[in-house]
């Protein structure tokens, strides 16, 4: 019993210290807030909060997303700001987890008292963020939470500016089925990560293609945590399919391409859900843009030469700020920037940053972005987004379908690996 005395003494003194520390932390933050909220005059900045995946599973997408938001903020500020006030971004890390996102948005809304919130990267975290925002009545415009489940939660404050996941590969399926019967591929292999963004894409494409007579010879799904994609690539190679549809992000798309090249496997067409659109993160490891020749990738509506709202200015500003070329611009950046554009237009139209009014405006009006026109359905999906089909041709990623946006005809069948 002696030890217990010392133990409990320690317990109470230590946990007492902890509680005091937490209290001090809370006090400090409250102090800070009082300082912030007391100076909301006309000339004070509008604070826009978002969480960025600086670490964790989505950290590769965190950086381009942040660049997109920051570029938008810079552009807006150069043009005089939003409603005459400068825009200030409050970006915190969310570690790519729903728990991190919950903490992040709680902090943004309750500690930093941001005026507006915009979305984190990823489907897995969008719902968590939207729920936190919803409780406080904040709108959440985001560019990358497009999985089917995101829109089924009964949240009226989530607005996805990008094409819904389900529809990404629809244009590709349409294109394949539009080919004359002699040229059309007979068999198809589907290989995807078990991800809420990728899964629905492949499922939708598969049902369209199967209905159109393309036989499925392989349909495999594997865990997201995989790091060795070789066995899956081998299975695809072994299937000998004419058509390969891959549900991938960047690292696995690279792994597949390398495996196909090593095994001299030349299907008539290859499409990867994402990866080939990530600029040099894709072309670098596979061995150059030559190797990418003929690979298709769907697009939610943006490419370098598209004639959409603000595109020319965006690209100029991007290169000025970050260097490189337009081929390096990632779709994550475009999505984040488009979020900013919708925000700008909505806020300017209603002349206010009140969230309730903003939500109403977002539900009723239509907007224009780098990715094309945007109109939100009741559940937050963007109903006017069209899936474009892109292909690497002669070192450039260009749109090839639908016809009216195409810069060239699709290259089919795919040439053999260089």
């Amino acid at each position, binding site marked *: 019993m002696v030890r217990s005395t010392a133990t409990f003494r320690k317990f109470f003194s230590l946990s007492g210290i902890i509680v005091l520390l937490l209290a001090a932390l809370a006090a400090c933050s409250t102090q800070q807030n009082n300082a912030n909220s007391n100076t909301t005059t006309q000339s004070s900045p509008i604070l826009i909060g978002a969480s960025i995946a600086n*670490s*964790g*599973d989505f*950290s*590769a997408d*965190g*950086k381009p997303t942040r660049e997109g938001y920051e570029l938008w903020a810079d552009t807006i500020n150069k043009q005089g700001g939003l409603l005459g006030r400068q825009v200030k971004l409050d970006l915190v890390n969310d570690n790519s987890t729903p728990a991190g996102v919950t903490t992040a948005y709680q902090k943004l809304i309750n500690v930093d008292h941001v005026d507006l919130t915009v979305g984190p990267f990823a489907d897995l975290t969008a719902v968590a963020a939207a729920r936190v925002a919803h409780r406080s009545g904040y709108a959440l415009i985001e560019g990358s939470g497009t999985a089917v489940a995101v829109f089924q939660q009964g949240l009226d404050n989530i607005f996805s500016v990008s094409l819904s996941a389900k529809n990404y590969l629809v244009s590709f399926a349409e294109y394949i089925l539009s080919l004359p019967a002699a040229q059309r591929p007979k068999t198809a292999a589907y290989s995807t990560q078990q991800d809420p963004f990728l899964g629905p894409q492949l499922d939708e494409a598969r049902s369209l293609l199967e209905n159109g007579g393309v036989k499925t010879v392989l349909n*495999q*799904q*594997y*865990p997201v*945590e995989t*790091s*060795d994609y*070789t*066995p*899956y690539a*081998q*299975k695809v190679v*072994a299937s000998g399919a004419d058509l390969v549809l891959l549900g991938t992000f*960047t*690292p*696995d798309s*690279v*792994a597949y391409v*390398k495996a196909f*090249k*090593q*095994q*001299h496997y030349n299907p008539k067409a290859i499409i990867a859900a994402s990866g080939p659109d990530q600029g040099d*993160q894709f072309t*670098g*490891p596979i*061995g150059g843009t030559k190797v990418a020749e003929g690979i298709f990738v769907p697009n939610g509506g943006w490419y370098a030469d598209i004639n959409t709202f603000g595109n020319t200015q965006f690209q100029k500003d991007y290169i000025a700020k970050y260097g490189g070329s337009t081929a390096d611009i990632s779709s994550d950046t475009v999505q984040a920037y488009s979020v900013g554009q919708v925000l700008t237009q909505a806020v300017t139209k209603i002349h206010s940053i009140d969230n309730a009014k903003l939500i109403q405006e977002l539900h009723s009006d239509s907007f224009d972005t780098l990715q094309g026109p945007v109109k939100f359905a009741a559940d937050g999906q963007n109903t006017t987004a069209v899936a474009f089909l892109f292909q690497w041709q002669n070192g450039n990623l260009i749109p090839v379908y639908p016809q009216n946006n195409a810069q060239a005809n699709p290259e089919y069948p795919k040439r053999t690996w260089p």
Partner: protein
Amino acid sequence: MTLIIEAVVLGILTGSVYALMASGLTLVFGVLDIINIAQGILVIVGAYLSYTLEKYFHIDIILGLLVTIPALFLLGIGIEWAFMRRIKRDRVMISILVTFAVALVIEGLLNFIFTPNYVQLTAPYIDAALPVFGFYLPYIYLFGFLLSVVVLTLLYFLVYRTKFGFGLRASMQDRTAAALIGIDVERVQTVTFGIGVALAAAGGMVFGATNPFNAATSYDLISRLLVIIVLGGMGSLRGALFASLAMLVISDIIDVVWSPVWANVIFFALLIVLLLFRPQGFFGRLEGRKQ
């Protein structure tokens, strides 16, 4: 049938690379009683080092080994001197924590220096493949296998034919007795740790050439390596080699014959079953009473 042959061949080739990395881990456990959780991230460090040499100094990745292996050897010695040496009691459990903390710091540094973007080692010959048995065998796998064979043979000679190896094996069997007969156990431990990390460098180069990687890939790596050394018997070099080959070959065959997804589940389940019947792994020693 070709598929199965392909699976076996690839399993052996990739298994040899894992054997390289696992040998370092099991050696360190045998001599220092330390489970080096940082081995996974150190492999990645080796891979990044090869990557930097290749990208910025245009040194070929194979030649680059002449730099990365000694560099990581020194890093290993540094880590042992700075951290491992301080652990006096309850080495196994505390070492897990310490090495994990070291791994966290290194992971943070790698993320900071290289960003979390995935990279892969490139070289003109990486994608070239040798047509054999009805499929293509990428040269890089062959090279990795040769490298492993060479390095593991050298290791074997070191451990079984040199005076240092004698000291190493003695320390593995009984640290006190070894010290009593005049072996500088501390020096043996430091050098062994360095060797363990240097092996990670070699494995890292091949791993980086065949897989896209970033700092977070280390988690999957260390889990596999831990499973391998337990399967093979902790402290046994032969066990590490055998277990690596067995694990990769079985995995690859199940991938091909059944489904890659269930391969992992089956693999872990088999591991558990084996351990229940033979808890010391293939070649390990049964734990005796520690006085």
